[in-house]
């Protein structure tokens, strides 16, 4: 706006600039390094900062969460199996679902019949079951419907017992297992994503930049690696490695990095003939430096987005591995295995699925928004 009036400025306002050695290089805007600029942009991005806080909180919880109550993740107590969540204070707010009751709707020819079914469904603890009649029925099969609410904590005499997120089939505290599982999954996902990133970017960058014969050769290797079914590779690796985190990470990385490498290559192919690269080359910049300083920063957005996809892929792949008997050795849990178990119980004990699935979704959304923020922050065009 101001610029438009520049021509009308009175001359006397101008003073000749004395050429001094010490001020000639002075820059009027505060001098910020690329990193400082990036940080500034990032800190101003409120959703990204919220996400960052959330993630730090989740990581902290995955460390301290298991110690917040007295239950161990491996302590089985069959008589406490499949208890619903119950939280002190929140237990009186019935719609929250933390009041420690199970409920189900039962049908029968008559209300009486439906009620009997409800009793059968909940261990026949009649005095702890509230029955609400939904429809009286007319004697035809399944016309009557009742809603039964089972006060399972009371029935088991656990007045002062609180499992914040309920228990699993072996009576283990879900809260403790959820955070320990989060820790396992995050470590697997982080390490796998990081390795994918490093290997993939380096490989893809070199392949795309040098092109020609080098590219041809390197791409054939990717084709071969990606063409061999990783299930076979993983089965074989389990022969030589103990089942556990290390082998799962190796299994993930062995084929996982090819996706990143191909994306980086595609982008480098696109960028390498553009003017700024030609300029750098004309100035005699070394190839390595061109890749590192010019190409990689320009494709950081794509790299970040792709890395974000690696994380859920890693979590689910781990759960797939436990599904076929190759995952984290029990009794340890992971987010994937918890979701797996939760899925089997989805209709009857939804809390087993809801918490791990919700946590995973929150982690993923936070990561992505933070990733977007990082992308903006590292994009020189966005710096103000």
């Amino acid at each position, binding site marked *: 706006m101001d610029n438009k009036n520049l021509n009308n400025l009175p001359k006397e306002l101008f003073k000749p600039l004395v050429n001094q050695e010490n001020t000639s290089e002075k820059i009027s805007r505060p001098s910020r390094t690329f990193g400082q600029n990036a940080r500034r942009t990032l800190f101003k991005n409120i959703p990204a900062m919220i996400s960052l806080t959330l993630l730090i909180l989740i990581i902290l919880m995955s460390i301290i969460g298991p110690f917040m109550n007295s239950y161990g993740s*491996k302590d*089985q107590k*069959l008589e406490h*199996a*499949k208890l619903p969540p119950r939280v002190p204070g929140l237990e009186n707010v019935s719609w929250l679902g933390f009041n420690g009751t199970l409920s*189900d709707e*039962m049908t029968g020819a008559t209300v009486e019949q439906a009620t009997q*079914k*409800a009793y*059968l*469904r909940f261990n026949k603890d009649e005095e702890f079951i509230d029955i609400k009649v939904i429809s009286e029925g007319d004697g035809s099969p399944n016309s009557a419907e009742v809603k039964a609410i089972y006060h399972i904590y009371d029935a088991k005499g656990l007045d002062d017992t609180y499992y914040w997120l309920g228990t*699993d*089939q*072996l009576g283990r505290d879900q809260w403790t297992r959820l955070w320990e599982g989060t820790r396992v999954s995050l470590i697997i996902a982080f390490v796998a994503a990081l390795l994918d990133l490093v290997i993939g970017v380096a490989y893809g960058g070199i392949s795309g930049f040098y092109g020609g014969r080098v590219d041809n050769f390197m791409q054939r290797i990717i084709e071969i690696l990606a063409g061999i079914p990783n299930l076979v590779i993983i*089965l074989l690796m*389990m*022969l030589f490695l103990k*089942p556990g985190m290390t082998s799962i990470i190796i299994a993930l990385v062995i084929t996982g990095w090819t996706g990143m490498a191909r994306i980086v290559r595609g982008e480098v192919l696109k960028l390498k003939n553009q003017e700024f690269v030609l300029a750098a080359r004309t100035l005699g910049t070394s190839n390595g430096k061109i890749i590192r300083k010019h190409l990689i920063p320009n494709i950081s957005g794509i790299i970040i987005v792709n890395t974000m996809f690696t994380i859920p892929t890693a979590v689910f792949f781990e759960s797939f591995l*436990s*599904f*076929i*008997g*190759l*995952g984290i*050795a*029990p*009794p340890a849990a992971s987010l994937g295995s918890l979701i*797996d*178990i939760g899925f*089997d*119980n*989805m*209709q*009857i*004990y939804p809390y087993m699925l809801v918490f791990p699935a919700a946590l995973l979704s929150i982690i993923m959304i936070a990561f992505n928004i933070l990733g977007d923020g990082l992308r903006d922050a590292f994009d020189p065009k966005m710096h103000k």
Partner: protein
Amino acid sequence: MRSKKWSVLLAAALLVSMILAACGGGKDENSSKDSTGGDAAKSAEQVLNFINGDYIPSMDPSKVTDEFGFQFVGATMEGLYRLGEDGEIKEGIAKGEPEVSEDGLTWTFKLREDAKWSNGDPVTAHDFVYSWQRAVNPETGSEYGPYMMAGVILNADKIAAGELSVDELGVKAVDDYTLEVQLANPTPYFESLTTFGTFMPLNQKFVEEHGENFATTEATLLFNGPFVLDVENDNQHITQANQWKLVKNENYWDADTVQLKEINFVVSKDPQTNVNLYNQGEVDRAGLSADLVDQYVSHDDFRIVPDTAVFYLKMNQVRKGKETPLANENIRKAINNAIDREALVNVLNNGSIAATGLIPKDFVHVPGGGDFREENGDLATYDVDAAVEAWNKGLEELGVDSIELELLTGDSEGAVQTFNENLAYQLEQNLPGLKINIKPVPFKQRLDLNTAQDYDLQVSGWGPDYLDPYTFLSLFVTDGGNNKMGYSNEQYDALIAETVETSDADVRYNNFLEAEKILIEEAGIAPLYQKGVTLLQSPKIQGEIVNKFGARYEWKWAYVAE
């Protein structure tokens, strides 16, 4: 530039042709399969609709090895006898009781003359001779042939090993309707063996005419049982069909007895999906996984069907040539006593019951007595005090104060995994100083590690292949093919050996009772549970028999109630 455009066009054309191929392939499928599932299913009354847990891997009686193969071979074919209610032997192609020689080694069967193959040929004694020879012929590559016949039919083992020609097999057709079988050992349960899929007859002319294609499509199958298999597309490989039906065989000699007109099958593997299909009335039965049992336990159609498979803990005494702590009898006894089997079956939550011995409940009767299980009582019990006492004694004998053991598991299905976790936890809780590391591996790798005897503890299971305790107790003779845990007891070996040589039922069963006692009291194995199956089943299914071995279901006498 021009050439570039062309190449892109080429690429696009490739892609489009792939798309067309994909869609085209699909359409064929649609038109060919439409009618199976929908209309026919709901019309008539004597029709049932079932889910099958998997494809049928084989319909060739000589080669079939799995649950579903035996199921459909059993429904469409008939051997000398058939299993009725409670394991009772019913007449099949054989008429009346066989004539058995004094020494129990020569069995003569009279065959009925009205039995026909589905192409009209009569079923003769030659069909049995051909089929049994084929089953042990090494060229056939049969797994169950040698397994079921070696040591039972004369020379079967040597023929299978390629040492004798198939003509030497102890089976011959005296005339078209008289079959004479020479046994290697008196095998009192031989009648029940002949109901098994591997012992079904085969029409030589038909089999040889189709050669390699035999039993691959509907057109290359020949039936002599109560039902015939019907796949919508006659030329589709049966192993690849995901829908098929059993239709009443009008040529069956006892067709008047068969009431069901049609049974439809569709392959579906996910338990939740199956229950949803059941609730929508698409199918008449759905298996329930442990997680679904809680939800449906109060359903009117909820059923628990007992099974005869028994699961037990193998305790390896010699690992890769070195003795393990489990070679110590006290340590083994401690483990056996430290297992709360009731808690374990609660975790399984699938109708399984605690196993207190190796022989399952309701499997065989002791001659002149009750159920084998009841006669021998609860051999394995949960007794923490006794366990701890034995444990401490064992530790002292070994001169250590803690032991670390590996628990090998090879099946990761949800409920089984929690089962393993609970088993390990129980042992660690009850036996101070014991540390259990669960080692999950894929099934094939578990078998490999078992063969190599490279494990400490292993949950293993066994389902019977005939109606005799020998099918279970022969597993643990010294150096037996399935022992693979270094268990050896001379007295046990002698008792089992004697049951093979004699046909005296009393002697045999006394030996079996005695042998089981030795095995469990020495804690060679620790029995865990006898499998059960939980399902939702329509009450309209009547007269269906659940067999104790071989084909799981018998539909010959089944019907749909009003």
